[in-house]
């Protein structure tokens, strides 16, 4: 019985990882239409994209968008998490709802809503329009990560800092921020990674300032082009670096405190 279940689970994981695996494999395959058996090994697809100005422009936009989103979402998430941790106030439920709701709204609805609203107020089609939209989308994740960290703080720690002569602002800088540092780093990486892969909203609001996933979307709409596999592999490596960095920033914190 256990063996059957184990085999089944392995099969399911194969299903989940097959597309990632094939995409990486075909990015080095010389055939124009990716299928089996494999043809020769090539770096042609990578050379193609590296020579493509559109790719570099999209990559640059993606970098700007994901880094800015990470910073903004983390700042907003931190402020909200801290408010929720420190204070009890009227309307706190509604307050939490407006930050935590965005991920439950379908991306396509958010995309249309953002496009319409940004056009209405006359700020659509800019790189920072994407940044604003992605910040709305990812701030909840930042808030959740940092709030979990604040759950672990000794209830008297902030008061202890005031008690030793730190003003509220000083205690924020000397105690709350250092305490939350691993979560803040983790949040920066994770929100940047989510933003780096998001394409629905970016596609709607970006106008001519495409990000990398929007660039991929436009290639996919045209033909079957193995370039996509090469870009996908690069994007995958970037995202994984961010995710692993996020994991490590928490892991190293643990290491330090148990040394």
């Amino acid at each position: 019985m256990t063996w059957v279940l184990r085999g089944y689970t392995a099969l399911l994981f194969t299903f989940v990882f097959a597309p990632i695996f094939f995409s990486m494999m075909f990015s080095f395959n010389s055939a124009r239409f990716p299928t089996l058996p494999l043809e020769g090994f090539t770096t042609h697809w990578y050379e193609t994209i590296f020579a493509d100005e559109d790719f570099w422009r999209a990559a640059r936009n993606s970098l700007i968008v994901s880094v800015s989103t990470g910073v903004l979402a983390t700042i907003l998430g931190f402020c909200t998490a801290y408010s929720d941790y420190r204070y009890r106030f009227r309307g706190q439920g509604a307050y939490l709802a407006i930050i935590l709701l965005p991920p439950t709204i379908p991306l396509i609805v958010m995309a249309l809503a953002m496009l319409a609203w940004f056009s209405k107020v006359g700020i659509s089609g800019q790189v920072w329009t994407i940044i604003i939209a992605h910040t709305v989308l990812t701030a909840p994740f930042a808030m959740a990560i940092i709030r979990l960290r604040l759950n672990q703080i000794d209830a008297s720690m902030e008061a202890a800092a005031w008690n030793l002569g730190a003003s509220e602002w000083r205690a924020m800088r000397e105690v709350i921020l250092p305490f939350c540092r691993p979560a803040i780093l983790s949040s920066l990486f994770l929100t940047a990674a989510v933003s780096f892969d998001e394409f629905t909203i970016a596609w709607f609001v970006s106008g001519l300032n495409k990000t990398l996933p929007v660039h991929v979307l436009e290639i996919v709409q045209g033909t079957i082009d193995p370039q996509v596999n090469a870009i996908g592999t690069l994007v995958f490596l970037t995202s994984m670096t961010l995710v692993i960095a996020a994991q490590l920033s928490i892991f190293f914190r643990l290491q330090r405190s148990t040394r």
Partner: protein
Amino acid sequence: MKRFNAYALTFRLPIIIWQGLFFIGPLAFTIAMSFFLVKNFRMEEAFEMKNWSRMLSRGYVWDSYWFTLMMAAGSAALTSLLAFPASMYLAFRSSESMRRWAIFLLIIPFFTSYLVRTFSWYVILAESGVINAGLGLIGLGPFTMLNTIFGTLVGYVMLTLPLVVILQTVTLASIDRSLIQAARNLGCGPVRVIFATILPAAKTGLIVAALFAFILAFGDFVAPYYLGGSKPPTLPILIIDTTKAGQQWPRAAVVAVMMMVTLFVIAFTAILLAYRKRASR
């Protein structure tokens, strides 16, 4: 703390302003926009039912609506069923460290481009793709898998499976083991143990997992478009076509509002079901 407190407001206000301007604002505007008019390819602010009466009287909108609803619900059920044995294995038959690794692995897909994975499935499922090439070796096929409901389902399952397995595993792993032990001692076979103790105890988590799968599939346009061939178009595809092709944003807004209302009703029902106390017998 009644008096004005600059420190507290510094941390409390930013998100209210931000989400007010860029989250509540857009959503409210979308609802308003569904009553606007389009004249000479220009949108005019108005309060007319024209878009609603037009969209709600069109057969293709309703076809699309029911199709999307059924596909999303079906895929949520399918994914839940597919995930359950694996979650059972991870929760009850594997070691703690293996479970942690499995969950870490399942987080990876969230950070790989969904588009690229869909493209990869496109290549795998194509007439001359990886699967048909494999089947050809043993003299089978080729089978048409792209541009079918099967294709769409593969995409939906790919999108939702990792999350569902994670949520199910976490739920199952937190069931009190003594409950299962007690059922065994009372002579329940493995199937009865699942139906009599595990399913009721894990109900909330299982429903929440399925709800997330539904939400993701319901709002996705990539799988039905690239793998399902948009036959028929789902609601998200309808929104894209109406927005991108013409200037009919108000009609797209009607579809968006329909989606939000549907989602709200379903999420509300599911949560009610999930948290309802079991009837005492």
